[in-house]
Each structure stands twice: as C-alpha cells, then as structure tokens.
C-alpha cells in the first residue's frame, strides 16, 4: 500500500479469501459466514484463520469432500419444470391436448377399421340402421353413435366422425408447420434486428411492421385466395402447405417484434460486454449468450402461436381461403355445417367444440408454462 492506512481486513477472521475446509462441507462461501454464528471461525476455530491466510492455490489439494448433489446447480429450466409439475390444471389440459393429438393421428386407423369408409368417400344413397344418411330434402343425418356415421353424415353423405379426425389432423399439421415457421423465422429476424440494429434493423423492422399492420384474417383471406387459385411453384393450390405457409408468415412479426425487444435489452447487459471483451465472434455472442436468455420467451410463445395458428386456419377455411376441398379441416366442417344449423346442429357444433377444446387446452397449458418459466411475471402477453 502506498498509504499508511489500515487495511479492511478483519483480523479475527483471517483473510476474506481463506476458504476453510470446514466451509466446503456447508456448501457456502465466505460471504455467508456472518449468518452462521456457530460456525464462525473467529469463535470456533481461533487458530484456523490468521495473518497467513492468504489463500493457497488449490492445485494439488485433495478434494475436501466427495462431490455431493448440492454442488451441482439447479438450472432455470429444471426449476420451471418443477413448478409446472405442481400446476395440476395445466397438466390436465396438457393431457387433453395430447389425447386430441393422438386421436387425430390415429384417424386412418379409425377410418379403416371402425368406420370402414374413407374421409372423402361420398355416399349420398347410403343407409345406417335402416335410415338414409341424407333425407329426401338433402338434410344429413345426426349422430347415430354406431360404428358407421358415429357423428352423422355431411351433406354429401360422408362420415362426419372420420372427416372430423382427418380435419383435426389437417388443422394440427397446419398449426404445427405454421408454428415452426413462426418460431424459426421470428427468432431469426428478432435476433438479427435486435443485435445488429442499424441497417439490418432498418430493413427488417419495416417489413415486420408492414405485415403487422394488416388484420391477420384479411391478409390471410387475400393471400390465401390468390394462392389457392395459382399455387406456389410446385405446390398445388389445394395443398395444405399453402395455408400453413401463409399463417406462418403472417404471424412472424408477432414473435419477431417481442424477440427483437428482448434482444435489444439483453445486448446492453454486462455479460454481453464481457463476451465482447473476450473477443467472442458476434454470431457466437448472439447464439450462445443472447439466445439462451430469450429462450423462455420463445417457449412461452410456442403454445400461444400454435393456438392462434389453428384458430386462423379455422377462420380462413371457414371463409374458403384456407384448406381446399376435398380436404377437411375443422374450419371447413363448420363452414359446411352452418347451413344445417337449424336441422342438424351437431354438424357444425361438433367440429366447433373440438376446435374450442383444442385451443383452450393449448392456451391453459401455455399459461402454465409461462407461469412456470417466470413466476413473477404479470399477465402481459397479448396477441
């Protein structure tokens, strides 16, 4: 010391850095000492500290204790998973959603082994239990609760239950593909715009604002109708990939913008500066320092975007701009059934109920996931 001032060292306790073997067993470092009054070396171990307490490098010193489980940290995701496991409501609706997915995936099995009729097979003259599936005025039959025509028929005499499962499969596939598109590109765009700012941001942000400024349904109907007529390149107009692609692109800004904001906040954090001072490559900073901190936001968005995508698909299909005939989806089934709302209300209500149940269970599961990831967060997410 250049000055003759007393040092801050607490003499009775030895060096602040003297890591005594007794402490290692408690799994704590020196800062916790004052609270452990009985273990404070200044009382219990008067000889242990001392002036020579400059810590020796620990090379060569045998480990004081076998490594216990307490020394392995519990990560934020494991903590979140533990919290989610305690949320029974979320778990229940998660199970409901998984059940819906399994049933829809098994649609071909049901079609082949139970109903014995394909999803797109028209059978206007067919009968079930002696009754015609279509009345003379063309009104389809309601639920029969038998293997054939379990939920009744549609206006062309097709088995509604089979079409419901196939339609669910279509809706879930479109929702899933759209969600993948949203997550991948939304994250990418948000990361790039937020991290590089400047020119990259000046290009990406207006693009996102442009899409954002249209109401999703109107944009979807406009683009969906155009593409359903022409198709894109090798993809035909009636492919289910077209609505999936449209929905994905429409919702990219809905994830991209929050991610961009998150990245703008994170890039000012000191640990990013620390990485920069270490000479880390910008791409690596983005992927290994910033992205892991934005992951919980992304995870929260996954169920939300899935539910929103399935809903938008239903809107578009209902309006005729989504899934094209003869493919079924919940949206097209509701649209088909709406004509018979007074005569055979189950035709429209059953697919509607399936849609509601699916979206509801995803949303409740999503809420649980969000609460688990950030228990202190206020309700703030909006679509």
């Amino acid at each position: 010391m250049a000055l003759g001032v007393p040092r801050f060292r607490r003499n009775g306790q030895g060096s602040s850095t003297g890591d005594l073997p007794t402490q290692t067993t408690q799994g704590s470092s020196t800062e916790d000492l004052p609270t452990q009054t009985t273990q404070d070396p200044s009382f219990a171990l008067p000889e242990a500290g001392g002036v020579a307490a400059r810590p020796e490098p620990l090379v060569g010193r045998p480990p004081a204790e076998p490594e216990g489980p307490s020394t392995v940290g519990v990560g934020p995701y494991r903590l979140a998973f533990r919290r989610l496991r305690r949320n029974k409501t979320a778990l229940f609706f998660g199970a409901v959603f998984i059940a819906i997915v399994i049933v829809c995936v098994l649609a071909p099995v049901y079609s082949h082994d139970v109903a014995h009729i394909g999803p797109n097979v028209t059978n206007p003259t067919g009968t079930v239990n002696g009754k015609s599936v279509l009345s003379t005025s063309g009104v389809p039959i309601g639920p029969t609760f038998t293997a054939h025509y379990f939920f009744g028929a549609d206006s062309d005499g097709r088995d509604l239950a089979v079409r419901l499962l196939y339609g669910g499969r279509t809706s879930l596939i479109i929702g899933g593909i759209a969600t993948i598109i949203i997550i991948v590109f939304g994250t990418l765009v948000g990361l790039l715009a937020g991290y590089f700012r400047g020119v990259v941001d000046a290009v990406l942000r207006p693009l996102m604002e442009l899409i954002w400024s249209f109401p999703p349904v109107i944009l979807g109907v406009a683009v969906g109708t155009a593409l359903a007529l022409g198709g894109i390149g090798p993809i035909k107009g009636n492919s289910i990939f077209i609505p999936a692609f449209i929905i994905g692109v429409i919702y990219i800004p809905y994830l991209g913008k929050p991610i961009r904001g998150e990245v703008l906040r994170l890039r000012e954090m000191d640990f990013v500066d620390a990485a920069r001072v270490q000479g880390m490559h910008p791409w690596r900073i983005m992927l290994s320092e910033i992205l892991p901190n934005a992951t919980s936001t992304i995870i929260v968005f996954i169920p939300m975007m899935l539910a929103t995508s399935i809903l938008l698909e239903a809107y578009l299909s209902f309006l005729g701009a989504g899934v094209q005939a003869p493919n079924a989806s919940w949206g097209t089934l509701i649209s088909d059934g709406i004509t018979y709302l007074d005569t055979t209300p189950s035709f429209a209500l059953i697919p509607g109920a399936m849609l509601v149940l699916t979206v509801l269970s995803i949303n409740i599961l999503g809420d649980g996931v969000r609460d688990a990831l950030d228990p202190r967060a206020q309700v703030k997410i909006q679509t």
Partner: protein
Amino acid sequence: MSEERNQGAAETQELREAARSLAGTGKPMLEAEHVQLYFPVKKGILVDRTIGHVHAVDDCSIALREGETLGIVGESGCGKSTFARCMVRLLEPTAGVIRFRGTDITHLGRRKLEPIHREAQLVFQDPVSSLNPRKRVGQIVGTPMKLHGVKGQNGVEDRVRELLGRVGLNPEHINRFPHEFSGGQRQRIGVARALAVDPRLIVLDEPVSALDVSIQAQVINLLDDLQDDFGLSYVFIAHDLSVVRHVSDRIGVMYLGKIVELSPAKELYTKPIHPYTQALLGAIPIPDPEENRARERVVVGGEPPNPVDPPTGCRFHTRCPHATDICKQVEPPLAEYPGGHLAACHHPQNVTEEEVTNAGRSPLSPLVAGGLLPNGKEVPVPQADTNGAGGGLAARLKRIAPG
C-alpha cells in the same frame, strides 16, 4: 486477535509497501492520448437526425504504468465508465489514440484485438447483469480460456476450479448457476473470469459499488492480493474517494468528461488542488461525528450540467465556489505542480505562490484548452500529435513522471 498475528500483518504490510514503491517505474502499459467519445443524440421518426452529442469523454489523456493502480473517480455520469470501456476497446473513441504497450489499438477490429483482449480484461459493476444467468460458473469462467486457447496443466476445468479457489469460492461450485450465489460471490466469479486468460491489466469498473460495505472490503482485499500475486495493473473506477484511496497509486478525478486533477494518491488526499476534488473529499463521511462536524467542507450544490451542452470554459464553473469570469471563458489546461500533481484550475487551492509561479502546462492537457496558466502566464499550445511522431506521449510522460 493475537499479537503475533498483528505483527505478521504489519510485516505483510511492509512488504506490500516495498512492492508498491517499485510499481509505476516501468514503461507505460496503456496510454490514452486525447481520447474523445461523443455519443450522437438522435431524433426523428423515419429518418434519424443527429441533434447533438453527449460529450461522454472529452479529450482525456492518461498513462498507466506496469504494476500500477490508477484510480479514476467522479460523479455518476462524468464519463469514467465510458473512458474505461474505451481503454479496453469495448467502445471505439471518436478521436484520440489508445496505445497498449506501444501498439495503437484505437481502431483495430475484433480479430486484431484478440491479443490485446488476452492481456486486458474488464470487471463489471453490476454482479447480476455481468454473469449470464443461463450458464454455469464453469462455462462462464471457462469460455474465455477456450476462446483464447488457454489451457491449464490439467485442462480447462481444472484451471477453472483453481481460479475459483483463488478468488475465495468453493471449487466444487463449478456446476452452479449465478443465481445461486450472493452479490459478493458473483463479483468474485467476475474476477475469476477476468483472470481466466492470465491478463496483465484489469480495468475494474466500479467493482464494489453494488456491494455491501463489509463485502466491499473483502473484494478490495482480494483484488489487492491478486495484484501482488499476478503482478497485475489496475484501472480502478469508483464514484467515491474513500474506496480508491486504499488501492490506488495514482488517482485521476473526472468531471463531465474531463480529467480535472491527476495526482499520486497520497497527494490528492493531503492537498487537493481542484475545488471539485475538495468537494469530493468533503463528501467522505468521517466515522467520528464530532470530527465530522468540526471539519470545513467545500459543499458543491446542484447537479452536474447537461453533458450534451457542457458549459464553456472550465466545466466546473457553474458549481464552483471560487469561479470568476475567466473560468467561464477560458478552459484551464492541466498545470503541473511538484510531485507529479496535475490540476486544471484557474484558482488552485492548497498550493504555495511559488508552486503556482513555477507551474507549467502539462502535455496531458486537453488540446482545446488554452495555454493560460494559473500564474497568468500564457504558454504556447502544442499542435495535435496523434501519430506518435516526435516521441509520442511516452517521451513526454517522462518529464511529468513522479520520481
């Protein structure tokens, strides 16, 4: 508290004093020459217009010698952290030159800075935001080693454990996450990360400001020990003088982006020349209330002026109790007083008339400052010398280096 132990402490103290007296005799390790960093202030909806600049660091020069601890103090917002970030090239100055061991690093790219970053590291103020919450301690401390190809004798993990032990943490905690540590422990992790690449220089950006007072002492003692063991040079930034006085060999006082006083640590406390330094010293609480009440204090009221539009002349004149007309018009250069004590003031305090008469203009003075010394003499102002031609800062520093 045995007597024996106290005696040992005194011996250690003496050894330290001896080591310290040798410090600062080497060549300058880091030189900052007339460094200036202006942040543009932008306004506009679609097209940003620059409507002004924040004068964060305005023409600051400093030289750090091998093994030395240079303290930098000043109020919040005076530019000390920005200056520090310029030194390790986290920020690129808008003007001026930064040299590391004689190499101009002012405008080097990331790849070219790699060897510099191995030697110069940074410790941050906020122990919460300086550690990535998604990474385990082992990754946080080990990543810089991997980036720079530093391998311990028994691999990276072993060296991480060794470092953790060295900074007073339990090496077994290598797999824990930052949220499982207290503030002081996190700051130790930050220190371990800085040490990971075996640096020669560590810039400490308010390393203890966010900590509890008792923990502050522990961390400062740790830093002190590490300096002796590894032969580190420190740039130690703090916003109060009581913290830096214990560690610094020299102290620079900054006000609104300018260095107003630069002096060996002891000198600064015994005879502060600049009124602002006096005010800062007056802000240090004295534990004895009677003594505290009895002393005469220079009290500076108000807030620092807006750094977008700093006052003309001496930047401190708006709050200075000694300010006169000259202070509003002419920016004072850093004048040299005996003992390597520099101060930029037209009305120096605690100096004899003789010292004022003999004072000369320091080459560390801002280029825009006039040549008007406190003794009324006008000396010629040298032209900007940013290419290092004509001896550069190092040669000129020799003249002002304290004996």
